[in-house]
């Protein structure tokens, strides 16, 4: 960590968004993570995404559990809501928060330990519920906070800094989410913001559970030769299959997108993203073919990235439950709790 705060001084030519804010206005405290941590780049990508989407800081909620990754919400959007929950329990806390106030934008930041080890049960059930949130896994394959033991996402054969290679099967959050029916699934790399920022924007706009699995190298414990989650390894085996662009409502979809490999996707919230295939054989709308492609490429040692699956048909949690449009938190008490008599009437219907 640095001893000085990032100076408040800014470049006078810095862009402003529709709210008149700059990216600097979406920053948080200075990171206390190791210098060069991928998580800091993910933080910068989140800042860029919420800036570009003109997110009002008071309408954003940052949720996290425990771990290096889960510290990062402190480093962006310091004017937004935040909840740093128990280890692995971020999905449940977010479910509660979202149940109470569906109007906020929820961004959960978790890690491979928090989501795939201690919190894997929470993670899969949040997907089942199709909870409307952007769920970012900062995935580095090790428990950095406890000095670099392998996590559940470590690949077979990956070498630790010291000791023997990993021999257990990794949990791949992307294929897990695909099998559970998640509706927006992406993988990216902290070292590729050109890809990552649009993926986060799409995830924030998507209605339902969006997973962004980000390879985010641990510079201290997992950036050596033999690691499969280092900067160098990720760059070498990078396979970018689907590019995504967010289209501002005021922009027309350009002719170039209408042809060939480009595919506009109209999100349930009214926004549009455009997918551009970088690999001909990949179909991001088919679960079955996506799953096969991902496994094949994984077996070939490649890291497949981009927007890997998207489904705008399925309803998110509130829609599935038939809830009122008004956030429960904003309903008057009398409407939320109709009283004893109404309860008796309801119960009598089942007698």
């Amino acid at each position, binding site marked *: *960590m*640095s*001893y*000085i705060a*990032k*100076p*408040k*001084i*800014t*470049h*006078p*030519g*810095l862009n402003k968004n529709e709210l008149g804010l700059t990216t*600097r206005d979406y920053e948080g405290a*200075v990171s206390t993570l*190791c*210098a*060069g*941590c*991928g998580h*800091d*780049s993910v*933080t*910068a990508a989140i800042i860029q995404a919420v800036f570009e989407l003109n997110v009002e800081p008071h309408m954003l909620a940052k949720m996290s559990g425990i771990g290096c990754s889960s510290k990062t919400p402190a480093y962006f959007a310091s004017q937004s809501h935040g909840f740093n929950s128990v280890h692995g329990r971020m999905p449940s806390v977010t479910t509660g928060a979202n149940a109470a106030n569906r109007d906020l934008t929820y961004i959960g930041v978790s890690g491979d330990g928090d989501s795939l080890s201690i919190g894997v049960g929470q993670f899969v059930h949040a997907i089942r519920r199709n909870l409307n949130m952007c769920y970012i896994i900062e995935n580095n394959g090790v428990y950095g906070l406890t000095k670099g033991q392998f996590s559940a996402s470590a690949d077979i054969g990956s070498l630790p800094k010291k000791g023997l290679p990993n021999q257990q099967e990794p949990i791949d959050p992307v294929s897990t989410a695909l099998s559970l029916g998640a509706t927006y699934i992406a993988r990216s790399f*902290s*070292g590729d*913001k050109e890809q990552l920022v649009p993926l986060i924007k799409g995830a924030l706009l998507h209605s339902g559970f969006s997973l962004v699995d980000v390879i985010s*190298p641990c*510079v201290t414990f997992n*950036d050596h030769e033999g690691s499969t989650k280092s*900067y*160098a390894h990720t*760059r070498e085996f990078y396979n970018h299959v689907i590019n995504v662009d967010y289209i501002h409502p005021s922009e027309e979809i350009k002719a170039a997108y209408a042809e060939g490999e480009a595919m506009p996707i109209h999100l349930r919230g009214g926004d549009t993203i455009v997918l551009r295939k970088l690999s001909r054989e990949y179909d991001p709308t088919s679960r079955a073919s996506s799953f096969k492609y991902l496994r094949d490429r994984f077996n070939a040692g490649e890291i497949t990235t981009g927007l890997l699956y998207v489904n705008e048909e399925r309803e998110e949690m509130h829609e599935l439950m038939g809830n009122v449009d008004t956030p429960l938190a904003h309903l008057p008490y009398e409407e939320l709790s109709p009283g004893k008599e109404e309860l008796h009437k309801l119960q009598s219907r089942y007698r």
Partner: protein
Amino acid sequence: MKPTDTANPDYYHKVVDCQWGCPAHTDVPAYIRMIAQGRFSDAYMENRKSNVFPGILGRVCDRPCEPACRRGRVEEKPVAICRLKRVAADHRDDITDRLPQAPARSNGKKVALIGAGCASLTVANDLRPLGYEVTIFEALDTTGGLMRTNIPQFRLPPAVLDEEIAYILDMGVDLKLNHPIDSLEDLLGEGYDAVFVGTGAPRGKNLEIPGRYDSDRIHIGIDWLESVAFEHTKTIGRRVLIIGVGNTAMDCCRTSLRLGADDVKVMARKPRGFFKASDWELEDAEEENVEILVNHSPKEFVYEDGKLVGMNFELMEYNIDEQGRIDRGTVTGEKFMPADDVVLAIGQDNAFPWIERDIGIEFNEWECPVVDETTMMCTRDGVFFGGDSAFGPRNIIWAVEHGHQAAISMHKYCHGENIEDRLPMGMNLASQKMGMHEWSFSNDYNPASRRLMPHVDLKKRFKKLDIEVELGFTAEQTIEEVERCLNCDVQTVFAANLCIECDACLDICPVNCLTITDNGDEQDLRTRLKAPAENLDQALYVSAELPQTGRVMVKDEDLCVHCSLCAERCPTGAWDMQKSELLVPYAADESPQDQPKVAGA
């Protein structure tokens, strides 16, 4: 773009905007840090090395460093560099034992310097320690040249002048006062090994309009200031018009106020923005309730019963085009301004009536000698020029630099060396890393605004001519002001081979000056950076190809605040903060074979 050649001393020198902007290349950030550490004597000596007269320049320098200062781009106002120089001078201890000394033995070479102003004194300062026998010829009965005759005492106290000039003369310079040179040819016949002309631009421009010679109440600015300095002139009329709006005009109007005038108007032919005077000199004059009237072009002097009563002016209107250029203007009317005295301050010319035109010294169409800009030698071997006498009126700091360069040339010339074969500038880089995130300089950005110089109360300052208006910074002001310096000399040095492209430096940079991107030509790169790079005067640094992706690291030097965060967030040490020290050669560094190398000068 090709990878930036940082081995060229110019690259990092240019990043230090103040030092690059200073004709004498004073290491400004270095001396500001010394002041911050309370090392006033060290700061004074650091200054003296390059600019020779820190006490004088700390008051009246034209400050080319300040408009150049990066702080002025990052926020509104530059660091008060000039005023900090005065702090070093005001608070230094006795430094006489640290001054250059003349050797016990002469080197057998004699040089003559004409004029005892800043240029000649600089030559003496550089050559006397090398054993030269230095003779200065001065027409007046005192030293300092225009620093004494044209700069009023309320801006530059004579004691400050005397002290810093004595540092040089006390090395054993033969000073001949009241000794005007009437013939250069005669002087050249006296056996000097080299001659230096530092006689300034002594002729004030005249204004040839009707009535100019019908009154003795119309004065030439620099002559009038000299007459005031020597106490030949002690009064002036109540109403004074100053014609012209340069720095001499500012000195004239403020001097008038101290000699009894109470209605002083500066008459400018052009609008604001086209004034020659420095902003701060304008401010100081206007603080004293001098009125500056724009768009008034002098037409004629007006007399009643043979007595000057004022002047008629043509009222002007100008068009300014998109590039900010002004046209010749059109006359829209006429106006009479009453006056008891008029001072003409519309510029100065060189005058060399004492240089024969048939002794091999070529003059150009403006009657200036043809002088080489590097060697300062004219078309006759062994005769050198410097200061205003070389290229027309500039300022003190340019005169000092001319003096340094002329001294190098004279030294080489006297030893039969090629004066064009000069030592190049050098550059040292030294890491400032002290620990994990500790640097040997104050890297945190201080958002304080520029401190305002305290002035003597308006009521008190006019009582005497020699009450210095500026009081100098207080200790509290000094502490704040030194922290405003961005330490531009502590360079961000990048090692491309170590970079793993983690983006940490890009993300932490407060002013978005870093980008990792595909290479391209400069015009193209400037459009693809994280923040617009529109200041074309400021360089782009481009690294070698980065190992993992072949992209390049690009840094826009324009607004970097040298906070070190890029280096702190770098996991591999690819970024480091290294202090650049410009190695400027002086006469003492040029070491002809029969001359023992002089250390530390």
